[in-house]
């Protein structure tokens, strides 16, 4: 904060924080400027000058009666309600009363003929601080729904999904609190964005699950198919994010955002599932198969990268018939036969072993 020691009087006069202090607009707990002054006693005179200028240049507000303003506002509202422009010189008390009556009349007709949600949409939104359509799942079961672009969403219980008002215009934007599985219809022209607090997930067309309960310490994004981009940032991702804060997730990978540290890490999902790959990769019948081939098969089947020291493990082979086991169980079995172990790091699997004789 010590760029302030370089400040001239003019700089101080224009500094909003300093102005607010001089004009008594800071909270009384904020002792920054008092502390700063005692740390920089040499700046006393400069600060006094800046204070003086700020006070001298305060502009006197025009006294405006709130009733007068609301009367004017009512006139404007009345004159716009019929969709007709009435020049101000033709307004009179009678016309005003008439237009108010007309407004009321029209409102009644409008309210009867149209869905009331339309009219009250904005008021409601202001109160709830949202602009969208909102789906709340307070039942005990997951809720299935389809969005206008064909995307299907399974909203878990205790979750809220809000759909942006101009969903689909330029991009497809939704806001999630809680947990949901998305199967997004492919549309490269209009990216699909899920906002969850400080984390945004962007996809073109894939399926993935997001868990973002307010009470949880993490937000997690697990990818089933396709490619998902996850980054920090809320509303305007394009302008605020830097690339270091962005990660790309592939199937069976999971991005975990730690809310407190605002840290984004890549790992794997709890239960990696088989991808829709050609059938030959879904057979796990191995007989004296070099482990390299075994890992390659698993990589293809689950779309998860498996790293190992090929030279060290080149004499290891594997014989077994694997079926219903999960990816992790399969890895356990394979590793056991060659006294190796595995770790998950950055969304990939690392195999550590001494090799075979």
């Amino acid at each position, binding site marked *: 904060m010590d760029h302030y020691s370089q400040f001239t*009087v*003019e700089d101080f*006069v*224009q500094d*909003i924080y300093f*102005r607010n202090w001089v004009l008594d607009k800071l909270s009384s707990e904020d002792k920054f400027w008092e502390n700063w002054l005692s740390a920089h006693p040499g700046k006393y005179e400069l600060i*006094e*000058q800046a204070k*003086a*200028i*700020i*006070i*001298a*240049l*305060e*502009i*006197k*507000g*025009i006294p*405006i009666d709130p009733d007068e*303003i609301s009367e*004017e*506002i009512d*006139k*404007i*509202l009345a*004159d*716009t*309600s019929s*969709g007709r*422009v*009435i*020049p*101000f*010189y033709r307004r009179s008390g009678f016309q005003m009363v008439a237009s108010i009556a007309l407004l009321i009349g029209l409102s009644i007709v409008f309210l009867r003929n149209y869905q009331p949600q339309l*009219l*009250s*949409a*904005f*008021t409601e*939104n202001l109160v*709830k*601080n*949202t*602009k969208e359509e909102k789906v709340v799942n307070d039942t005990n079961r997951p809720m299935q729904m389809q969005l206008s672009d064909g995307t299907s969403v399974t909203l878990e219980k205790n979750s*809220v999904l809000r759909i942006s*008002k*101009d969903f689909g215009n330029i991009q497809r934007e939704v*806001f999630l*609190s809680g947990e949901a599985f998305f199967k997004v219809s492919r549309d490269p022209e209009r990216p699909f964005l899920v*906002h*969850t*607090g*400080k984390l945004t997930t962007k996809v073109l067309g894939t399926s993935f699950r997001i868990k*973002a309960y*307010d009470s949880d310490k993490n937000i997690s994004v697990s990818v089933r198919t396709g490619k998902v981009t996850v980054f920090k940032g*809320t*509303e*305007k991702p394009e302008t*605020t994010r830097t690339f270091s804060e962005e990660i790309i997730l592939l199937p069976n990978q999971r991005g975990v955002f730690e809310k407190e540290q605002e840290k984004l890490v890549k790992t794997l999902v709890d239960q990696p599932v088989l991808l829709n790959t050609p059938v030959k990769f879904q057979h796990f019948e191995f007989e004296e198969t070099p482990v390299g081939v075994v890992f390659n098969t698993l990589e293809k089947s689950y779309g998860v990268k498996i790293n190992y020291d090929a030279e060290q493990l080149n004499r290891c082979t594997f014989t077994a018939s694997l079926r219903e086991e999960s990816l992790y169980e399969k890895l356990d079995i394979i590793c056991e036969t060659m006294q190796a172990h595995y770790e998950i790091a950055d969304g990939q699997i690392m195999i550590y072993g001494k090799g075979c004789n």
Partner: protein
Amino acid sequence: MALLVSDKILVSEEEILWQAFKAGDRNAFSQLLKTYYPILLSYGVRFQQEKDYVKDCLHDFFVELWNRRENLDDVQCLKAYLLQSFRRRILREKSKDKWFREIADLDQEYCFEVQFNIETYLIENEVKHEHLQKLHTYLKKLSKREQEVIYLRFYEELDYAKIADIMSIKNHSAVNLVHEALKHLRNHWFLVVFASLFN
């Protein structure tokens, strides 16, 4: 809904308001009026002291805004946008009164009046102090443009880019106008005496 409580979303509230207004939402229009009518009125009376005249201008301004809402652009800062459009309108209205003048011409000589705290103080207390009187004379000599920049910068707390847009001047001209005025004031060291009266 903790999900939504972040600075960014709060800021974009005015974008939401503007979009809703453009879509013809009456509640949004009413909200927009409540927020910006007082700001525009107090800005308008700086150009034209007759308040009823400004109120009529504002009436027509907002009616027109409503009627043209579908053709309006998206705006980044609603406040700056409205100040700019209204400024243009009120200057145009004034030029109609003086129909023989070119608008550009008029813009050079437009009127903008603010009263600074210190002036009020000097007048109300009939201060005779020589230095303060000199300062008073100096403030009276501030050009209309300088006064307007100071108003937008300190009263409305807008940044220079927005001020430049509103007044149709270059960014650095706006910066210079404020800096010059402040530099002059600084030379009046006795301001300190004045400020101490308020503390």
